[in-house]
């Protein structure tokens, strides 16, 4: 039986010529940008490593050995050497991708939704509600983000969950500010007036008229925050406020290896190099996205 026979007869809507649309054009532009594609490939590889980590590691990242401590890069059986407890660096770096990316991305995702919602509401409604929300946000904004993250983490206590909460709290005001300023620009456009004139309520207008115009810039800004988040998360772990040993996480590894910097400088620098590569990839991706979205036709 033909599927179409099951549907009630509806008047056919003729097909129309379609333009690729704004997001289609942005996608096309990114696809033609070799730098964006390169960093996207790096990020995809890291994400794959984060997912497949436990199955992909060549050795056991938790086995310690007093006799194989701080071996140099290229040692038999330990391609990237060993750490201060004789654990395989390659395995630990690979497995560490999971926690480090998780700590970098999760707070930013939460901040994107919470801060975005706060900012869009403040920007759209304006007036006293805007003042109330934004002045409250400004209080948090007044502190340097590192200090704020440490203060929250210290108050909540060590641990991954508390570190995530404190990082989210650090980023919410930043995202809210961007969201508020973009929304304030959009809400004074005539098409918002026209939508109000057609009788739509505030939340219908936000959903169908505002979000499409503000999500892009907010998204780009938050993508850029991922690198900051990773570095802050590493910093918290470094200070003993984030991930607890023996879990492998780049910031924590950097901390424990720092005493070996004079004996094995290259091995000690490896976690830092991973943090650097990852954060710069997210930064460059955010930058290229911004460039692709800025072009006005």
């Amino acid at each position, binding site marked *: 039986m033909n599927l179409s026979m099951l549907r009630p007869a509806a008047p056919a809507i003729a*097909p*129309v*010529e379609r333009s690729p649309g*704004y997001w289609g054009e942005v996608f096309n532009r990114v696809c033609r940008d070799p730098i964006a594609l390169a960093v996207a490939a790096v990020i995809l590889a890291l994400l794959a490593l984060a997912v497949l980590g436990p199955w992909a590691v060549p050795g056991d990242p938790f086995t310690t050995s007093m006799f194989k401590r701080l071996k140099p890069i290229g040692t038999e059986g330990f391609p990237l050497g060993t750490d201060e407890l004789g654990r395989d660096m390659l395995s630990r770096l690979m497995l560490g991708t999971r926690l480090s990316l998780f700590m970098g991305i999760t707070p930013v995702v939460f901040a994107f939704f919470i801060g975005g919602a706060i900012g869009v509401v403040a920007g759209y409604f304006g007036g006293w509600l805007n003042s109330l929300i934004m002045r409250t946000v400004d209080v948090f904004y007044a502190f340097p983000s590192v200090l704020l993250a440490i203060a929250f983490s210290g108050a909540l206590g060590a641990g991954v969950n508390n570190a995530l909460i404190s990082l989210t709290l650090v980023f919410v005001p930043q995202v809210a500010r961007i969201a508020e300023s973009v929304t304030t620009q959009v809400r004074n456009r005539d098409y918002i*007036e*026209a939508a109000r*004139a*057609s009788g739509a309520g505030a939340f219908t207008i936000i959903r169908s008229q505002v979000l*499409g*115009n503000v999500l892009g810039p907010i998204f780009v800004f938050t993508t850029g925050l991922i690198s900051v988040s990773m570095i802050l998360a590493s910093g918290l772990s470094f200070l003993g406020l984030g991930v607890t040993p023996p879990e492998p996480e780049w910031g924590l590894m950097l901390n424990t290896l720092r005493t070996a910097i004079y004996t094995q400088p290259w091995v000690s620098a490896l976690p830092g190099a991973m943090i650097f590569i990852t954060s710069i990839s997210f930064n460059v991706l955010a930058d290229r996205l911004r460039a692709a979205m800025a072009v006005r036709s």
Partner: protein
Amino acid sequence: MTQRDIGGPAQPLLRVEKLLKHFPTKGGLGKRRVVRAVDGIDFVVRKGETLGVVGESGCGKSTTARLLMQLIQQDSGELVFDAMAVGGHQLPLREYRRQVQMVFQDSYSSLNPRLTMEQAVAFGPSVHGVSQREALQRARDLLGRVGLEPTRFAGRYAHELSGGQRQRVNIARALAVEPRLVILDEAVSALDKSVEAQVLNLLLDLKASLQLTYVFISHDLHVVRYLSDRIMVMYLGEIVEVGPTQALFSAAQHPYTQALLTSMPSMDPGNRTRVSPLSGDPPSPIDPPPGCRFHTRCPHAEAVCAQAAPQLTTTGDHHYAACLMVQPGAGHSQSPPAGLIYTGASA
């Protein structure tokens, strides 16, 4: 479209009573001052007519439009739509906004850059409960009706269209909720002359076929004359003259209207304007002059004009002007004697 006409043809479609909007000025020390953007105006829009609204920039035309659309809240005054108070239980604001729509001046910023033209037009109907499919179908019908081939334009975005095409989409969008009154706020002013003429003719066609009523706001007197049945002249937030187009153009009563008419560019090179009929800018609406607001620029001003504020006085069939020179017994050397009452039909 059941029971569209409530009060019968003689009932004005929209009655505006003592409409007043003052904007507070920002900053400054001492007492707060206000911009008297619209300062207590009364007028009616009759069923099926086009009411032209003219005046210099800053005279309150656009504020009036936004008040009529209820995009901003008036400080005082009332709107009565077909004998129902706007915002009352008979006609809640949401229902009023289905009956009244607006076309804005800037065709680009009044279209959402992320929506296709059919989505933009279909938004209004879907807000009012029409199914998505039906709303899109209606959008395409309307795009065709305003002269844009749906298969070519329905899937396009605003930046791919010309100014004239975009304004056609805006007109379609306004018509999508089947309004009875359409407010056109400088809707053709940003278009070049040939496109403007096409859009004006489209507006005339649509008005006839859909039984629309227009409030047409413009600073271009030629265009207003072409489209309007009646014309209302505004100056510094007040109405200075209102009357049928023919009467207003042939026998303007208010010196300001006369000045506006003489400032119209003429097609006849032998008849071109040599001296500017008015000089300077209008006074600030923050501190309007006392008495008649026009007396600082009026060639016929006398001492009394700075003291007494003129009332809208009838000077002929449905023709009113707010000038002491036409107001009986007002004290101006040219005013008619007190007690003289024009006996023609009233508005």
